[in-house]
C-alpha cells in the first residue's frame, strides 16, 4: 500500500508545470522533494493532494484513486500542509492546531484530541504560544503551529474516535514545512516527522535545505524543469555532478564527518566546470 503518483502531467495554459512525474511514498518513510525555485515542487504537492487535476496520469492512495475517497475518510488518512496561509479572525494557536483534529471530532474535540495537540505543540516548541492569537505570531512560529495541526490530523490518539481509521497507514504531504525555521527548530520538526514515519506515516516533504534532506529523508526526489530527474537514497541523489547540473552552481559533496550521510556545500566562488 502506498501513496502514488504515476506519470502525472500538470499544465496551466501553455505552461507545463509538471511533466510525466511518478513517485511513491511508502508508509514509514520520509521522501524529501528538492530542487530549484520553479522546478515544480509545489505543483507536485498540489497534484498529489488533489488541489490541481493533472492533465494526464493518476494519483492513488492505498489502492484507490484520490477522487474515489469520500472527503471525510480521505481527511482522516491524509493531511496536507501548504505554504504559509493567513488564518482569519483571532483564533488562538491552540484552536488552530485543534482544527487539525476536525475530521475526527467533527467540532467536538475530546480530551484525547487535546492531549494530542498539547503533545504536538510541545514537540514543535509552541506550548508557550498556545494561547496567543495565531495571526500575531512570527512566520516561523506560524509554520510550527501549522505543522502541528497537519500532524495532528493523522496522529495516533489514546482514546480514538469511532471515525478514526483502523490502519496506521496514513500520509503527510508537506510543502516547505521548515523553510522559516531556525536550525534548532528545523531539526526538532524533522525529528518529529521521523517519529511519525516510524509510527507508520508516509511523509512527503518539500525541503530546500539539502542537508536536512540528507540527514532525515529515506529517499530524495530531485526536481528540475517540471520533471523528477532523480529519486533514491540521499547518497545516490545528492551527487555533486547532478546538483551542479540542477542548481547551476558549483557544489561540494563530502561525507559528513560524524554521521553516515553526505554533506552538501554550495560553492558560489568556485568555477563551474
Amino acid at each position, binding site marked *: 500500500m502506498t501513496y502514488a503518483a504515476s506519470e502525472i502531467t500538470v499544465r496551466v495554459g501553455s505552461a507545463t508545470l509538471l511533466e510525466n512525474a511518478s513517485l511513491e511514498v511508502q508508509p514509514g518513510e520520509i521522501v524529501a522533494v528538492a530542487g530549484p525555485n520553479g522546478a515544480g515542487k509545489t505543483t507536485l504537492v498540489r497534484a498529489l493532494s488533489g*488541489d490541481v487535476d493533472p492533465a494526464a496520469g493518476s494519483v492513488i492512495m492505498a489502492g484507490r484513486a484520490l477522487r474515489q475517497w469520500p*472527503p471525510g475518510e480521505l481527511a482522516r488518512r491524509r493531511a*496536507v500542509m501548504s505554504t504559509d496561509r493567513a488564518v*482569519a479572525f483571532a483564533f488562538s494557536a491552540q484552536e488552530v492546531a485543534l*482544527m487539525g483534529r*476536525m475530521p475526527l471530532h467533527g467540532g467536538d474535540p475530546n480530551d484525547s484530541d487535546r492531549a494530542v495537540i498539547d503533545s504536538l505543540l510541545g514537540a514543535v516548541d509552541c506550548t508557550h504560544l498556545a494561547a496567543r492569537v495565531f495571526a500575531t505570531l512570527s512566520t516561523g512560529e506560524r509554520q510550527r503551529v501549522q505543522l502541528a495541526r497537519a500532524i495532528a490530523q493523522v496522529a495516533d490518539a489514546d482514546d480514538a474516535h469511532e471515525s478514526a481509521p483502523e490502519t496506521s497507514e496514513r500520509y503527510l504531504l508537506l510543502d516547505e514545512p521548515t523553510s522559516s525555521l531556525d536550525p534548532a527548530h528545523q531539526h526538532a520538526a524533522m525529528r518529529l516527522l521521523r517519529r511519525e514515519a516510524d509510527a507508520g506515516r508516509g511523509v512527503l516533504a518539500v525541503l530546500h535545505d539539502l542537508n536536512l534532506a540528507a540527514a532525515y529523508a529515506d529517499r530524495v526526489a530531485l526536481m528540475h524543469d517540471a520533471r523528477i530527474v532523480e529519486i533514491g537514497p540521499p547518497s545516490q541523489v545528492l551527487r555533486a555532478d547532478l546538483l551542479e547540473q540542477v542548481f547551476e552552481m558549483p557544489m561540494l559533496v563530502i561525507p559528513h564527518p560524524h554521521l553516515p550521510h553526505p554533506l552538501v556545500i554550495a560553492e558560489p566562488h568556485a568555477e563551474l566546470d
Partner: protein
Amino acid sequence: MGIGAVAISPAEVVAILLGQLGLEQVWEYTDRQETVLTAIRIPRVLATALVGAAWAGAGVAVQGLYRTPLADPALVGIGGGAALGAALGVAAAVSLGIVAQLSGTLLVTVSAFVAALAAAAIVYRVASASGRVVVATMLLAGIALSAFFAALTALVVAASRTPELGTVAFWTLGSFAGVVGRDVLVAGVIVIPAVLVLARLGPRLDALALGETEAGHLGIDVPRLTIAVTVIFALLTAVAVAVAGVIAFVALMVPTVVRAWVGQPHRFVAIGAGLLGATFLVIADVLARSLFSPVELSIGVITTLVGAPFFLWLLLRERGLLAR
C-alpha cells in the same frame, strides 16, 4: 414597550398583558393604551428583536464565509438587492391585492430573498480571485452595487405610485413604524431556525478560517458549505429588509463585539450575535422613536451614528491585513 408618543408605565404594561390573558385589571389603563401596546408596541418590539438577530446572524455568516470582519450584507450591496426585491414584491402584492395578507408578506420576503441571492452572486463573482474573496474589491464593489440598487429601488417607488411602497428613506435607512403581526410571524419562523442552522455549521466555518483549500483538506465540502451559508445570509437579510428596510452596520458591529466577548468559534458567535443583535436593535429603536418624540427617526440613523465610527476603527485595526 412603555416608551413612545403614548406613555404607558411599566405597571400599566404588566396590567395590559395580564388583561390579555383574561385577568381583571390590576392597574388602571385606558383602551387607547391597550390598543397601542397590543397592536403596535408588542409586534414592533418582537419584530425589532428578530430583525436585529437576523442582521447580526447574516453578519456572522457573511464574515465567516468571506473570512473577514469587514463584511456587512448591508454595505456590500446584498441588503440593497434585497430592498429592490422587496420593493418589487410590494408592488406585485399591491397589484394582486394581497399586500395586507400573510401571502403578501411571504411574496415580499421571497422576492427579497431571490434578489439578495442574486446580489450575493454578483458580489462573489466580482470580488473573488481564484476562490478567495478580496476584501477591498468586495467593499468597492459594494459601494457601486448599493448605489445601483438604491437607484433602482427609487425608480420602483416612483414608478409604482402606491402608498404601500412607502418612501425611499424607508428602504435605505430602515424603520419599524409600519410593523404588523404577520411580519413577526414570518420573521420568527425564518430567523430563529436560520441562526440555529448557522450555529450548527460553526465548526465548518472555523475550519474555513484556515483557507478554502485547507478546509477542503480537513474533509469539508467547501462548495456545499458556501451555498448553505450564502442561502442563510440571503434569507436573513431578505427577512430583515422585508420587515424594516436596510439597516446598516448592525451586521458589521455585532459579530465583532461578540467575538471579543465569547471567543472565535462560530458556533458561539452565531448564537451570541443573534441575542446581542436583538438587544441592540431594540434599544436603537427605542432611541429612534423617543429622542425627538413625537417625531420618529429612521432607525438606520441611530445604527449608522454608532456603526460608521466603529467601521473606521475596524479598518484602522485591519489595515495591515487589507494591504496584503
